[in-house]
Structures are given as structure tokens and as C-alpha cells.
């Protein structure tokens, strides 16, 4: 594809994203808001697992921490919803970094087990009765729906709160993706991949593997925490049982289906984990997860390098034909 053609495609995509909430129903708009939320979470997990090679089976825990940070700040401290997003990111950055430090001693499947332990215990930790006055215990916390800001109305832009929420999520996602793209295309991104590919040589090249791995954990958790906060605002409700180990596994499914070590893969994966369960449910009410499983096997079989890998391959074939 020529440079002009790719710019054209990008412009069309941006226009499509901007028009989307005005052409689909409010419920669909809400679903696309969740796609953006998941895309941020998946980009975070992909930084850790796809780029840096550290497997996490517990990222749902960081999503939960982000969601609860947002909910508690809004519900108990009256913080504005937009301010809770960076706060959740900061809390999860610290939490992820601290979890990453002891995780340095664990490799591969052993790290997977340790993160699994984190993911599986999180719902119960959130129910802990001494924290109840903050977390609301089993009941969780209900959050008020954010209204579109007054200045939009004054400017003559009328939108409902679903549409506004979509644009808020779109803005946060755009910022997070640009930051992620910058992070991964330079010195830090190369170092993260180097550690994954050949950690001894990476250290011989001067890469401080321990520091990079724990920072990758922190950054990854930060992304997932930001997503968790946005998700809580969108769903207007947090409860311990929304963040079971199943959520962590779905995130892992998302990055593998979307494409490991790929930025666009996070978006494909998010579309998959948001819409494929719905499609499966429409096909069979009795066994939706069996249908989901079939989809999963089909995707992995047809696109072994994820959707992002398949798209890249198609583009290469397309350009070669065009060049001839």
C-alpha cells in the first residue's frame, strides 16, 4: 500500500469512529464503548505478554483494581468521573510494578501460576468485610452516569450520555494508543522484545532486564487499570463477581486472537471478545460457550498469527499484486 493510500484508510477510519454513535443505536454505541475499553486493557496485556514475553493469567485483577479505584473515588469521595481514570492508572502502575518485582524470579508457566493466583483471589479480596465501607462488599457500588459536559450543549452539539461516553472512551483510547505506540517503537520497545527473544544477550547489550520487566508489568497494569476505570464508568456498576478469573482468561484470548506483539491486534481482540459471545448467544441459547469455542478454534486455525498477522499478510499480498 502506498503512503497516500494508508493515510486515506486512516482518515476514513477516524471519520467512521466519529460518526459511529450517530448511526447506530444507543445500545450498540454502549457496546462499542466497551470495545474501546477492552482494547486499552488488551494493549496493556500485550505489552507484558506479547512484547515482553511475561504471561499473565491475572490481568482481570488489575482491571478490577482500576474499576474499584474509579468507583470508590466517585462514590465515597465525590471525585469527577474523568479524574478517576488517571488516578486508576496511577494506582495500577504502582500495584503492577510491586507485583512485578517478586515475579522477576518466576519464568514462563510459573509466572502464569502466580498471576493466576492473583486473578483468582481478587473477587474475594474485594468482598473482604473490613473494606466493606469502601467497596460495598458483595453489593458493590453503583455509579451515576456521566452527562455530556455543558460546553458541548452550548456549542450546539446535542448528544446523549451513551454517545458522550463513547467519545470520552475514544479520546482516552486514542491517547493510550499513541503513548503505547511511541513507547514500543523506540529504545524501550526494542529492549522489551530483546528480553523476550534472548534475555542473556539482552543483558549483554546493556539492558537492565529486572528493571525493564518490572516496569513492563507496571505499565501493563496501568493500561488495564485505566480500562477498568473506564469500564466501571460505562457499566455504572462494580461488584466483585464482575471480575472473576474468567475475565483474565478472556483478556488472554483477546490478545492471542487479535495478534500477539501487535498494537492493532488489541483492537481486533477487543472486537472479538465483545461481539463473538453475543453472536454465539444468538446462534445457540443452550450452549453459547460451545459456539464461542468453535469460533475460537476457527480463528486460531485460520489465523495462527492473530487477526493482525492475517491483515498484515493480506496487505503484503495486495501491495505485491499492485506493484506488478
Amino acid at each position, binding site marked *: 500500500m502506498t503512503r497516500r493510500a494508508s493515510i486515506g484508510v486512516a482518515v476514513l477510519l477516524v471519520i467512521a469512529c466519529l460518526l459511529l454513535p450517530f448511526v447506530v443505536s444507543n445500545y450498540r454505541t454502549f457496546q462499542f464503548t466497551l470495545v474501546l475499553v477492552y482494547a486499552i486493557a488488551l494493549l496493556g496485556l500485550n505489552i507484558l505478554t506479547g512484547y515482553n514475553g511475561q504471561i499473565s493469567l491475572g490481568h482481570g485483577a488489575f482491571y478490577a483494581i482500576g474499576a474499584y479505584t474509579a468507583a470508590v473515588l466517585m462514590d465515597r469521595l465525590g471525585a469527577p468521573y474523568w479524574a478517576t481514570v488517571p488516578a486508576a492508572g496511577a494506582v495500577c502502575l504502582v500495584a503492577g510494578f510491586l507485583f512485578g518485582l517478586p515475579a522477576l524470579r518466576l519464568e514462563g508457566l510459573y509466572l502464569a501460576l502466580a498471576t493466576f493466583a492473583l486473578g483468582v483471589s481478587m473477587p474475594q479480596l474485594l468482598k473482604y468485610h473490613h473494606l466493606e465501607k469502601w467497596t460495598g462488599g458483595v453489593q458493590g457500588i453503583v455509579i451515576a452516569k456521566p452527562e455530556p459536559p455543558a460546553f458541548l450543549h452550548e456549542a450546539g452539539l446535542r448528544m446523549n450520555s451513551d454517545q458522550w461516553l463513547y467519545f470520552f472512551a475514544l479520546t482516552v483510547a486514542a491517547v493510550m494508543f499513541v503513548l503505547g505506540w511511541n513507547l514500543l517503537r*523506540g*529504545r524501550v520497545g526494542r529492549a522489551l522484545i*530483546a528480553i523476550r527473544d*534472548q534475555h542473556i544477550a539482552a543483558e*549483554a*547489550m546493556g539492558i537492565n532486564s529486572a528493571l525493564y520487566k518490572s516496569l513492563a508489568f507496571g505499565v501493563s497494569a496501568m493500561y488495564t487499570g485505566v480500562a477498568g476505570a473506564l469500564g466501571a464508568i460505562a457499566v455504572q456498576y462494580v461488584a466483585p463477581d464482575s471480575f472473576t478469573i474468567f475475565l483474565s482468561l478472556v483478556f488472554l484470548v483477546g490478545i492471542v486472537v487479535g495478534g500477539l*506483539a501487535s498494537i492493532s491486534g488489541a483492537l481486533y481482540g477487543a472486537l472479538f471478545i465483545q461481539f463473538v459471545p453475543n453472536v454465539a448467544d444468538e446462534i445457540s441459547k443452550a450452549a453459547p460457550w460451545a459456539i464461542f469455542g468453535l469460533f475460537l478454534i476457527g480463528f486460531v486455525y485460520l489465523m495462527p498469527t492473530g487477526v493482525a498477522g492475517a491483515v498484515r499478510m493480506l496487505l503484503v499480498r495486495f501491495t505485491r499484486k499492485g506493484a506488478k
Partner: protein
Amino acid sequence: MAESTAARALLRVHNVGVRFGGIVALDDVSFDVAPNCIVGLIGPNGAGKTTLFNCLSRLYQCDCGDIVFGERSLLRVPRHRIAALGIGRTFQNLALFGTMTVLDNVMIGHHSRMRSGFLSNALRLPSVGRDESAATGKAEALIEFLGLKAVAGRRVSDLPIGTQKRVELARALASDPTLLLLDEPASGLNHEEVGILGAVIREIRDRLGVTILLVEHHMNLVMSISDLVVALDFGRKIAQGTPDEVRAHPEVVQAYLGSAC
């Protein structure tokens, strides 16, 4: 005056000993590497050559003795600081970053000379852009120097061994080393490639002013380019001298031909 500078070694390996359980891998090994020299380290398999290299790059801990680089002992330096001190290396069995392109592999070699961190990268501050383009320029020059231009954008694991060896060399040079450790650079190369390699190693010393310590089984190569040869056998140093002296040394002859009994 001239004598005292000549006597100041760039690298001093001083009574180094390494044990793995009951096995003595290195036993009281000492030698000096003078600046701007090519020093060959030879010995049969299991003589301790790679063990010594791994001590120099801090992958192994010495049990006794000292390794001094410039003025500084390496024994307390963490291994990721070695490159920044000016010691670059290649690996016996290739340790490239397989999924990355040749250019990215060489750019990682320059990691220790760059400063930017997570935050400045994420924000892509102007300094990051400058740093990156300087690193790209450096890597491209080395890729040119080692004749890798045609494959610069290729995934490194798709390339033949001989080419991968040159990528490793380029990656090691990208850290601007003063001392370059080459672990069997000729293994897996054909006759013609070995000839070229000898010329390249000399050029690295002469043009870039890099001191070279080389482990090699290919005797013709070692003997033709080294200023000094150190021979190890069963973890001990058995000989040291010019290529001719070492070649004629009875213990070296015995180590390579085996004893009569």
C-alpha cells in the same frame, strides 16, 4: 614513558578460578590484554575458554582471582553494566533477537549508549527522536561496513548462519566497545567466509581501534591474525606467546594431539 604505557594492560585476568560443583572449570588463569592487540584464546573442547568469556561478561561469578578492565575490577559490576563500560561480545551459538529485523538487532547493540527511558519514549520527546536517528545512523553505518545492507530489513532468524554471525558482530560493535570478545566467530563458516572474517577482524582493530579477544578453534585464523595467543587445557593456562611460540610449545602439541597412553 613509552614502556609504561605499553605495560598498562586494557584487561588483566588475574588468578581467576571457577568451579562448578566438583569440576574445576578454570584454575588460576592469568594473562593481560594490551590495548589495540588481537589476542587469541585457544584450547581443546572443555578447556574453559567460554567459561572465561562468561566471567568477563559477568554471566558467571569467579570463585577466586580478579578481572580488571582499565582501572576497574569487574567482579562487582552487574552484567547489564558491562556493555556501557566498553566490553562488547558475540556468542558461540548465536544469541540474536530472532523475531526482529537485522537493523533492530544492531540498534539494540547501541542500547547502552542511549539514555531515554519509559516516560520520555511514551511522550516521544524531541531528545528521543534525536537519539533514535543517531542510533539508526550508527546501525546503518555498521550494516554497510559488514556488507549487510541487502538484508537490513529482513527478520534475522530467516537468514543463513554466516550472515547471522555478521549481524552479531555488527550488534557487538554498535555498543562502541573498546574491547570486543568474539566467541568462535568462524564456527559454521565456509573456507571463503573464514578468509573474509580474518580481514574484517583486522579492520575492526585497525580502523575502529578496538582491542580483540578471540576464542577460536580454527587454528589458521587464530595464528594468522593474533598478536598474542593464550592456550588453555583443563582450565589451566599451558602456554602464552606469539603464534609461533605457542604452536611449537610441547604442552600445546600434546593437548591437541592427545598423550600417547
